[in-house]
């Protein structure tokens, strides 16, 4: 009996509707609260996120998957308020991010301790809130999969096998190596979403086809980031990303395609966009992405079908 754990309780997969599979409501490396430069006025941030989610819902979106892991901006009570007062289902994440963004408390935990933590958050609940995490987030840095990150991957794989939940990764730089680690742990690769396949510096259609062949989902989720935003590996003009998606669909892997925009409604301790670019939200993706894809020959109905059907294949927990 499949279910999807949202912050307001489990729902039936049919209720997912249009789902943005790799978004962030709040995201920031742990420890930002120790840096007074980045303090903010909490109610203004809540009001801003609420307005963005309401706009997302008005444009047809029903579900947002917040991929902020433990200590990386996940705030379950805030998500419950946002979900309740905007009508959008929000799915919270367990797991971490890349190695250096794992909080110091968890850095020397063993594989089994991390697996127990993830399993607890998905099956029992996050802290005292009684809210269950919907999936596990892992990630790796730009240069390699470090020892800590490999531990995190193996722990996530074991927890995912025990709980039946999905794994969403950060970073496609070493996507194939990640899938080998998951396969060595005996995880069914159709439960894995490899994200940021459309990062500027790592577009590689052969790798994506190989991953899709192994059953994993490829998430092209850095679309609405303005090309002028320079730093980091996500920028890059959207036309090249749209061509990549078209090639992926032409290769017959449309059922392994995930589209999203990896925006931060509010960044904790850093700023997602420089002063020269606007602040995009998921609503901008629903407004902007169909046009970008239509120009490379992908119809709008295909876009809405992908946004509705594919997340329903990966997010539900058996």
């Amino acid at each position, binding site marked *: 009996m499949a279910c999807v754990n949202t912050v307001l309780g489990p729902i039936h997969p049919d209720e997912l509707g249009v789902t943005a599979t790799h978004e962030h409501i709040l995201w920031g490396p742990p420890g930002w609260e120790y840096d007074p430069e980045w303090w903010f006025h909490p*109610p203004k941030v*809540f009001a801003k996120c609420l307005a963005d989610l309401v706009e997302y819902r008005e444009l047809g979106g029903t579900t947002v998957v917040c991929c902020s892991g433990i200590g990386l901006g996940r705030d379950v*009570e805030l998500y419950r308020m946002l979900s309740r*007062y905007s009508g959008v289902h929000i799915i919270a994440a367990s797991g971490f991010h890349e190695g250096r963004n794992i909080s110091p408390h968890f850095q020397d935990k063993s594989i089994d301790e991390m697996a127990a933590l993830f399993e607890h958050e998905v099956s029992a609940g996050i802290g005292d809130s009684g809210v269950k995490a919907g999936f596990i987030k892992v990630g790796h840095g730009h240069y390699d999969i470090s020892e800590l990150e490999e531990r995190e991957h193996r722990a996530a794989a074991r927890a995912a096998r025990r709980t039946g939940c999905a794994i969403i990764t950060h970073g496609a730089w070493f996507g194939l190596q990640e899938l080998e680690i998951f396969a060595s742990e005996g995880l069914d690769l159709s439960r894995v979403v490899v994200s940021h396949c459309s990062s500027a510096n790592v577009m590689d259609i052969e790798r994506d086809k190989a991953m899709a062949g192994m059953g994993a989902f490829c998430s092209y989720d850095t679309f609405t980031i303005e090309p002028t935003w320079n730093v980091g590996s996500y920028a890059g003009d959207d036309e090249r990303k749209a061509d990549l998606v078209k090639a992926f669909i032409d290769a017959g892997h449309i059922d392994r395609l995930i589209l999203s925009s990896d925006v931060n409604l509010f960044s904790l301790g850093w700023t997602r966009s420089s002063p020269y670019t606007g602040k995009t939200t998921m609503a901008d993706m629903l407004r902007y992405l169909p046009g970008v894809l239509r120009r490379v020959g992908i119809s709008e109905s295909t876009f809405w079908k992908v946004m509705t059907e594919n997340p329903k294949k990966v997010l539900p927990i058996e």
Partner: protein
Amino acid sequence: MAHLNTVLGTLHPEEMGITAVHEHILFGPPGWEADPGAWFKMGKVFEKCYNDLMDFKLQGGATFIDASGIGSGRELDVHIKLASATGLHVVASTGFLGELFTAPHFHARDADYFETLFVHELTVGMGRTRVKAGVINAGGGAQPMTRLEAAQHRGAARAARKTGAAVMTHAINALDEQLAIFREEKLDPARIILGGCDTRLDLERDKRVAKAGCYVAYDHVGLESWSRMAHALPDQRRAELVKAMLDAGLGDRLIVSAGSSGWVLGQGEDHLSNVGNVLRYFVPRLAAAGVAEADVRRIFADNPKRVLPIQ
């Protein structure tokens, strides 16, 4: 070991400091969600509640007891976010505020049901969470007391004896029946806070119950004569009441609060009173009425520290 259940965990009584005993963040009768005319912008209201609490904190407050019972404005997520954002110790409470503030689902229930419900919320957690309530509300106001309110009082008394929490009543109209029920359930008077003692003024009654051990709460500070509530009266009268009780040597049984709410669900912004105004305006008024600084400290810090924690 005496402790107070806040929405962020436990708290040692010594850390309570100046306490707002009978306040609300959101307050209103159940069923307001059905009427879009009563809807509001949650972003604006959250900011207003945040500003109210921060104003209270900057006036010197440290602990905030939210007296909205089940279904009448108690939203755990709002409490937790405000507690973590302002640094105040916010305590959520269980119990109901009377017939009109009880949702129909609970109308046909008896005292045993209420007892198990309150004990569950005080010891295990509220709703699906494991966040524990800190205080029990026993509302009422109907004269004579209705069956449902009597069952709620009885359930509250039994839960208080079982868990060691304090009971906070909200209206003085049916005082004799309330005290009869508490006596019948053998609830220690020192665990009872009689709210609303400044709605129907009777100094002798206040002295009588204070001598019996109950705490007398003047908890409508700020509801001046221009307010539309039936029991509004000038704050000067309340200051005189406090002075009279102190002169009678009953200062250890006094609680003063504003009974304010950040947002009244269904009626909009509550201009009547503000939790920060108790410290900003009423404390100087007490000083002008001849109340010593130590007595003010006793009313706002020592008395709540003695009655509210779970013994």
